[in-house]
């Protein structure tokens, strides 16, 4: 991530400055995914991105344009959730909430819960390049239709690359 102008002109946060100076961004942040600090970093990055003040890597730019990490929403039962913050657990290996594009009567964003990953006890093999390449080809991750964050396929294909470090995965390849 790079500031187009000198970022000293902006009152950037200490955390944002640290990431800039250490060649980090929202895809490989030192903050814990789901923490307040990460949410703040994401919002700040998105703000500068929207204002055309920073250059982001492909992955970070895609995230800034398409995800709303940490934004408050409610699920279909009205329970408070955070958008685009993948976690381990649920009926499958991982789950996440993504903006459905709808709002409830109280103007809250309504989120859809998406689960992915094997549920039969198979281990994650995304650190095996052959297995990862086979998965990528089998799932057709390259196709545009696979890049919809409302689908489990998107998260299976891209969560390791976007959130692998934060999810504690040993590789950023797909599984």
């Amino acid at each position, binding site marked *: 991530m790079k500031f187009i102008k000198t970022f000293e002109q902006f009152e950037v946060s*200490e955390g944002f400055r640290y990431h800039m100076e250490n060649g980090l961004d929202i895809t490989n942040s030192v903050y814990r995914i789901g923490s307040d*600090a990460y949410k703040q970093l994401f919002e700040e990055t998105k703000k500068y991105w929207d204002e055309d003040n920073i250059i982001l890597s492909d992955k970070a730019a895609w995230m800034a344009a398409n995800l709303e990490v940490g934004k408050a929403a409610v699920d279909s039962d009205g329970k408070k959730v955070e958008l685009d913050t993948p976690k381990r657990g649920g009926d499958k290996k991982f789950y996440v909430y993504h903006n459905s594009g709808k709002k409830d009567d109280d103007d809250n964003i309504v989120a859809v819960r998406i689960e992915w990953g094997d549920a039969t006890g198979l281990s994650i093999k995304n650190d095996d390049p052959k297995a990862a390449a086979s998965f990528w080809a089998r799932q057709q991750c390259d196709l545009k239709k696979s890049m919809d964050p409302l689908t489990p396929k998107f998260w299976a294909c891209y969560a390791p690359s976007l959130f692998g*470090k934060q999810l504690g*995965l040993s590789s950023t390849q797909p599984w």
Partner: protein
Amino acid sequence: MKPYFEERISKHEVIRTFSQSVEEEELQWHWDEEDRLVVPLEETDWQFQFDNELPFTIKEVINIPAGVIHRVIKGTGELKVKILK
């Protein structure tokens, strides 16, 4: 398996050594049930990080209150600390 070797030196004190070969993903965010003091025993460039804060190099005694999320970040060589529980 724990990402460190531990030697108990008294009821409330252990010497914990993290090997250079530990994988970064083994050093997970976590919290402990009791307050802890971490005392570095050797000079190191390993780092410590509290949740919602930036990492810092382990140079002085670190007080970790119970329930506070934190993690260790791998540096070069091994990390040797004394932990008082």
